[in-house]
Structure formats: structure tokens, C-alpha cells
């Protein structure tokens, strides 16, 4: 890693020298593209446990569906800037650090499972939606919970500070369910609450629930509800706000990927086949809504705009 950084630095200096010579030529570049051209480095922020979007494999290398998409964006940036070589650096981020690190330029792209919504658009920008997820709950089959109504008066876990817990709180108040909500610090802990019977159910994004259930000791013991707390919400790759040139490159690259056959292939690779490190198969077929979002790529934060006809 250190050597990589030094290499990046040396290369950055060399490129900066070259850049000074050809300044007139590159004058129209601004923002992130300019920075990448000057340094010859693009920084990608990854999450360490957002399976299968962005996580570490057994060699501690970041992999995942969102990482693959980001690497396509990197290719497009390289082509756009006509660079011979573009170094990719990976930086770990968490839900608390992703905004400051993006804002101060430590990372240029955040590749994970970040929900695109209007509040967040005041602070950052998102490229085309790469996944849709709804808030559902997972429970043990043995507790026979089929609908949201069945959770009445029970203890239910969710991760604090997420849109999931917000929707659970709202449903609890609106439908007068009297659910005892247990906030957990991390997604894995929300699931642990169900595993250890501290809660009868955990409310999270359905795709995360699928990955936790698949990775548990006894995958057959868990069931994910069909009842949802929300409409499907879009996940997007996060970029800095007010950087239209960089966003255009990212949008074009992702749109081209989703519309080609490769988009579906990439989806199947992460959601329908065994994935490293433990050879899990999430077995989540592509939904009609996401299929539509792939055919007509969009960066809309509005869940209603993703309705399948």
C-alpha cells in the first residue's frame, strides 16, 4: 500500500510537470477531472462489509458489484483524459466518514450501498442508480411472522441512524403497533439481535438481510418478509456536488454499462452466483423495477419514478 502511494506520488509529480508544460491545453478541465489529470490517481472509497456491493475478500482486497461499476467509471475517466496510466487507490470509508472524505477530496467516488435521496442531494451528487432496495424484516421461520402487523408488541431491531429505523419508527406510530424498537450500531449487530433472540425481527434493506441470512450458521432458519416498510429506494455511486464534468463522464460510463448485455452479466455475477470469500449465493433475481432502471438509466432520488409499468 505504501509503495503504491509513493509510486502514485512520483507519478503525480511527473504528470504535474507534464501538465505545467501543456497547461493551455488542459485549461478547460475543472474539479475532479482536473485533479485526476494532475495527480494521475483516482481514489475510490469502499465499505468493508456491504456484501455484495463493496466489501473485502480474503486477501483484504475490495471487491463487489459497486466496485466493478466504479472500475468502469475509472476506465471512462482514463479514456476521457487520454491518460496512459491511471492509478486506482482504495480508501476504506464508513457511514460516518464517507461525507467528509468525499468533501475534502480524499476520495473521488464512493462505491457502496448509499441510498440516493433528496436530503442527501443537498450535500452530494449521485450517478445512475445501480440497485433498488426496500425496507423489509427478517425473522426466524419458527416465530411465524408473516406481516408487519404480526410484529405488534414485540422487540424489533434496526440499525440506528438509517432510513430503515426511521421507517420502522413511522410505521410503529402510524399503525399503533407498540413495537419495542432496539437500535443497533451496525447492520451486523441488528442481525445478531435476531440470531441471539434479543429481537424477533430485524428491519433493514432487503438485500442486506438476504446477505446476512445467507451468511448465517443456518440460512434455512430465516425468512425475509414480503411486506415492505417502504417503496424501493435507489442506491447510487456518490460523487462531489457541483462537478458536472466529472458527473457526466460517470453517468455516461454507467449508462453504457447498464444498457449493454454486460450490465445484466455483472448483476448475475454478484447476485445469482457464488461470490467470494465464502462462496455464498444470494440468489436474488433482478426485479422488474431495476430492469427498467437499467434499460433507462436515471439518477432520480424519487422512489415513485422507478415503478415498473
Amino acid at each position, binding site marked *: 500500500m505504501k509503495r503504491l502511494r509513493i509510486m502514485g506520488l512520483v507519478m503525480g509529480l511527473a504528470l504535474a510537470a507534464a501538465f505545467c508544460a501543456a497547461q493551455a491545453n488542459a485549461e478547460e478541465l475543472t474539479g475532479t477531472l482536473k485533479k485526476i489529470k494532475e495527480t494521475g490517481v483516482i481514489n475510490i472509497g469502499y465499505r468493508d462489509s456491504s456484501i455484495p456491493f463493496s466489501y473485502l475478500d480474503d486477501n483484504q482486497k475490495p471487491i463487489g458489484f459497486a466496485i466493478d461499476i466504479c472500475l468502469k467509471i475509472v476506465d471512462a475517466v482514463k479514456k476521457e483524459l487520454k491518460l496512459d496510466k491511471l492509478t486506482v487507490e482504495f480508501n476504506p470509508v464508513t*457511514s460516518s466518514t464517507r461525507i467528509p472524505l468525499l468533501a*475534502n477530496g480524499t476520495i473521488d467516488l464512493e462505491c457502496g450501498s448509499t441510498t440516493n435521496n433528496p*436530503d442527501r442531494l443537498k450535500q452530494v451528487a449521485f450517478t445512475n442508480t445501480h440497485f433498488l432496495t426496500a425496507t423489509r424484516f427478517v425473522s426466524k421461520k419458527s416465530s411465524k411472522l408473516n406481516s408487519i402487523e404480526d410484529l405488534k408488541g414485540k422487540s424489533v431491531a434496526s440499525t440506528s*441512524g438509517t432510513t430503515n429505523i426511521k421507517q420502522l419508527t413511522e410505521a410503529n406510530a402510524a399503525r399503533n403497533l407498540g413495537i419495542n424498537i*432496539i437500535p443497533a450500531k451496525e447492520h451486523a449487530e441488528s442481525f445478531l439481535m435476531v440470531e*441471539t433472540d434479543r429481537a424477533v425481527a430485524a428491519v433493514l434493506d432487503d438485500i442486506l438481510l438476504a446477505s446476512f441470512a445467507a451468511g448465517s450458521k443456518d440460512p434455512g432458519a430465516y425468512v425475509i418478509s414480503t411486506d415492505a416498510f417502504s417503496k424501493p429506494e435507489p442506491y447510487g455511486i456518490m460523487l462531489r456536488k*457541483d462537478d458536472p464534468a466529472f458527473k457526466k463522464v460517470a453517468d455516461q460510463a454507467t449508462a453504457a454499462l447498464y444498457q449493454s448485455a454486460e450490465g445484466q452479466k455483472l448483476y448475475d455475477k454478484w447476485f445469482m452466483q457464488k461470490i467470494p470469500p465464502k462462496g455464498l449465493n444470494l440468489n436474488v433475481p433482478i426485479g422488474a423495477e431495476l430492469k427498467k432502471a437499467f434499460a433507462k438509466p436515471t439518477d432520480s432520488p424519487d422512489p415513485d419514478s422507478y415503478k415498473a409499468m
Partner: protein
Amino acid sequence: MNYHWNWRVFWEPAPNGTGNYLDMLLSGLVLTIETAICAWIIALVTGAVVGVLRTLPSKTASGFGFAYVEFFRNMPLLVQLFLWFFVLPELVPHSWGLWLKQLPNAPFYTAAIGIGLFMSARVAEQTRSGIGALPRGQKLAATALGLTTAQTYRYVLLPMAFRIILPPLTSEFLSTIKNTSVAITIGLVELTAEARAMQEFSFQVFEAFTAATVLYLMVNIVVVIAMRFVERGVAIPGYITGK
């Protein structure tokens, strides 16, 4: 830096429906203070007892005190809370475990007791050093007067020892307040958890954590000032610590 500052975010309504973001942070602050006070009471009482045990002539008592202190202060607080919350209910019989898990406010009780016991090991060490700092003649004089061991501690040693260790105890209390933030790991929605939730909802991360920092600072300054008054109030001229 490409960051959209918005200090007015605190007056915007929070999505959990209990008022604005400032209310959210303040409700976290209240829980932080409640947890800290409960933990501190546990730490003071248990710590004083264990600290005294370590200075007793009895080998069993001082051995127990030694084991207690080393057990609680040599394990990270985060690990301890995790053990209390997730592992303990699995070790006891199933029905007890289920009862423990279904307790309302379990994170609060676990945090108060867990942090209290962790800090008690440190208070015990302070108490022991406070007693150790007294001249040996004090104890000998008490014995010569015919006081029992209990009376010696109650009337001679402890009143002075506690006055000596008041300033370090202030630091321990401040640590207790700050350590409550670790309880976020077992789902206690205290100040740090609310700040995290606020940045997750609004994406105004710097504003959220600045507010949390200022609130922690204010609480700790109040404690420092209050403890100065206590120190001045209990000081006795002529004692080691008196002016």
C-alpha cells in the same frame, strides 16, 4: 473543500418525528448524563470497597481486590460491554437468558453497570493509592487508641484518603462521562449515537459532530467547576490537602 455548510440544520425537523435535530441531540445528552451518573455511583461505591480490600492485612481480601482490579481494567471497555450484552445471556440457563434479553431498556442498564464496573477498577486503584499516601503513623496511632480496623478506616484513614484523591477522582468522573459514548455499540442512543443519526439523515456531518463536541465540553466544564467547589468545601486546614 467541497462542503455545503448549513448551521441552521439544527432547527430543521428531524425525521424521527420528535422535534428538530437540536431536540434529538439534547435527548441524547440527557441519556448520556443519566448513564454517566448511574455508572459513577456504581464505580464510586464498588471502587471504594475494592480499594479498601486491597489495603487490608488479610491476604484473601487483598488477593480478591487485586484480581478484581486486574480483570476489569485490563480488558477494553468495548469488549466488556459486548460480553455483558451479548455473551452473558448465552451463558446463563436459557429461561434466565431470555428474561435478560427481553428486559426493557437493556442497553441502558448494561451500559450503566458495565461502565460502572470498568471505572470502579480505576477508582479502586485511586482509593488504594490515597490510603497508601497517608503516613504509617496514622494507622498505628488509631490502633494504639483501641480503634477496630473498621473504625480506623471510617474515622481516620478514609476521610483523609478521599480528600487526597478528589482531584484524580474528578478526572475519573470526566472519563466516565466520555466512556458512555462506547455504549453506542450495544444500542444505547446517547449523544454520540444521536450525532451519528443526525449526520446519516441530514448528511451535515461536521455540524452534527461539532454540536456533540460542544455539548460534551459544556457538561465536562460544569463537572470540573462543581468538583472545584466540592474540593474547596471539604478542605480542612492542617490536613495534607488543606491550605
